[in-house]
């Protein structure tokens, strides 16, 4: 175990996989000489050279499409898009090509590639650099979608993504790049897709959170315990496709209440989807309607006050959890 930052964990994952497999290469805008817009690819150019760490022009759709073509011919590209907002310029290649090709050509060709993209708000970058599009990619059959919240998961999931034969949309959160965490040593620690993590066990309410919201959910859970005597179970799905619905349903059957926290927009969101799945499959176990805590239904504003108001915080999660437990538990701890 060693304590490293999320960006280092991601970099180590790429470096280790590049050492292991000569077909793995990295390309994207400013991933080489500049060392990555968020310094995630720092040091890779020095170690692997320009053939395997390729700076590209600003041409998102072609960067991804070139990756798809290279993957069809058997290479394993790791494409970095500078932000999830910019990934919209590459939606055609991601959805119409990367995701569709294996199926539309009946499995006669595969697209083993990873498309990394950081997103999320909190840095006053306004309405074109701060969004969360997990729900958008989650919708597309043919893609795998990862959304790690810890350095250990980031590394282990990215290594799995690079080894996997399917196209993977790998969503990172800009605010998490600097967080530190214990990461197991060893080249072969990978995290399989489709296995949720239970961040803390609890019995009264299930809180599901992804990316930065997994941390917000954990903090909210601690406060629920301290101030309200409510025991929350926090689940981080880690991947949205495949989704470990079993773990979530099992938890909901135990707690009978669910809150879903995400930074993305409310309509057609991760929470909307998950709440439907829970309602369809665990309705009889629910003691209260499923609650969603989401980003505000607006393009992300610039003003610090407004931006913070548009992003979910602990108090929003606590409020939602309390709404599900209304009347079932004392609102204040009885000292």
């Amino acid at each position, binding site marked *: 175990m060693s304590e490293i930052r999320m960006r280092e964990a991601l970099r180590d994952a790429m470096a280790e996989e590049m050492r292991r497999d000569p077909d793995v*290469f990295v390309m994207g805008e400013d991933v080489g000489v500049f060392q990555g817009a968020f310094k995630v690819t720092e040091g890779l150019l020095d170690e692997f050279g320009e*053939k395997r760490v*390729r700076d*590209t*022009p600003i*041409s998102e*759709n*072609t*960067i*991804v*499409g*070139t*990756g*798809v*073509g*290279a*993957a*069809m*011919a*058997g*290479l394993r*590209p790791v494409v970095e898009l500078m932000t999830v907002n910019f990934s919209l310029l590459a939606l*055609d*290649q991601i959805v*119409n*090509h990367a995701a569709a*090709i*294996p*199926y*539309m*050509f*009946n*499995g*006669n*060709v*595969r697209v083993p590639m990873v498309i990394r993209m950081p997103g999320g708000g909190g840095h006053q970058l306004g309405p074109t650099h701060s969004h969360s599009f997990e729900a958008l990619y989650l919708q597309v*059959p*043919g893609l*795998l979608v990862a959304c790690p919240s810890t350095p250990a998961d980031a590394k282990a999931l990215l290594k*799995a*993504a690079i*080894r*996997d*034969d*399917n196209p993977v949309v790998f969503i990172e959160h800009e605010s998490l790049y600097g967080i530190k965490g214990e990461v197991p040593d060893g080249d072969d620690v*990978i995290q*399989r*897709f*489709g296995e949720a993590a239970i961040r803390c066990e609890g019995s009264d309410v299930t809180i599901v959170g992804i990316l930065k919201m997994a941390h917000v959910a954990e903090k909210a859970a601690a406060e629920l315990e301290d101030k309200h005597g409510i025991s929350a179970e926090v689940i981080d799905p880690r991947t949205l*496709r*495949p*989704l*470990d*619905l*079993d773990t979530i*349903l099992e938890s909901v059957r135990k707690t009978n209440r669910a809150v879903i926290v995400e930074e993305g927009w409310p309509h057609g969101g991760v929470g909307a989807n998950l709440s439907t*799945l829970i309602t*369809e*499959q665990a309705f009889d176990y629910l003691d209260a309607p499923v609650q969603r805590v989401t980003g505000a239904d607006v393009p992300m504003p610039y003003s610090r006050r407004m931006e913070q108001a548009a992003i979910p915080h602990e108090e929003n999660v606590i409020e939602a959890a309390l709404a599900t437990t209304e009347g079932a538990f004392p609102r204040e701890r009885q000292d």
Partner: protein
Amino acid sequence: MPRSVPRYGLCMAKVPDRQICLELLGRMCLIRRFEEEAGRQYQRAKAGGFLHLAIGEEATFVGTTSVMRDDDYLIGTYRTHGHALARGTSPDAVMAELFGRETGTSGGRGGSMHIFDWKRRFMGGYGIVGGNLPLAAGLALASQYREEDTVTVCMFGDGASNTGNFGETMNLAALWDLPVVFLVENNLYGMGTSIERHSAVTDLSRKAEGYGIEGERIDGMDVLEVRERVSHHLEEVRSKGRPSLVEAFTYRYRGHSAADPEVYREKSEVEEWLAKDPIESFIRRCLEDGVLNEDDVEAARREADRSVEAAVRFADESPEPALESLYEELYVVSETMGWYAVDERSPEPHRGELGEDAPEVAKNLAESGASHAEEARERQSREGVRE
């Protein structure tokens, strides 16, 4: 407004030896016959969706594939039945794909616009205009990365030369010295919009200038000129590792798709181009030269008839894809992704839909959907063939 048929090249390409002429003639006749029959089968509702025929454009892709190496990559658009056939894909498999059958090139999952044949390095037809250009760069990058001397031929229409992908990919390919021959099949129309109305520069070969690469306009109706010039470009690209742009001037005799009333062009223009029919003019050339005789031509036409009849029979007799296979080939299930939910709505079990359960779950889900499809099919047959 009708346009005169342009003539390019001061000296005509030489007639190659008899074997090559027979091969070129055979392929072009087969493809012409195949496309005519595909049109008929579409009228009978045996083939669904959209159907884009390349009748008139045969010389461009037959000439091109005839000078490609077996290990070169070819990638095309949604008008590529002929490209696959030119590369050697069996007419049976292409027709079966049009019929949506299990034996089709894509098992009935792709259809007319998405023919694919990995063995012949035909890397697919693509339904998004310009969508195949970045893929071509990627295939070429793989060749360069592995230090192979294979070249990718990327064929696309005049309309695609206005897409962002064109600019992005030409720049990237030139910047990275990727071995791609970009070949514009300029048939003068992006769907129903004529080139004068869709491109600021109508000499598309000049679009190469902005990327610092060679661009050349050739007569795409003359299979021998296509052979000669594309061969030159292939070898230049192969030896120098620089991309180039070839604009082949060609013409489609049929509409953009089977559902095209062709209000955007005059009959006289079509007739003018018909006089330059790539197959008839090649036959005249071969007969004049004496390399082929009337019997050879007759034999090529008979063989094309026979192959296409057999392809229709094969497609017709082939089974529909099994409903159990609806979710197959969507993902590769492996150590890193051990399972996926066939459909999250299905009740239990969840992390299951493990490999062995998937076909059964998929079948149940698909059967309800298929009953709708059957109803639609019956309705269609009650109402007769399509317009």
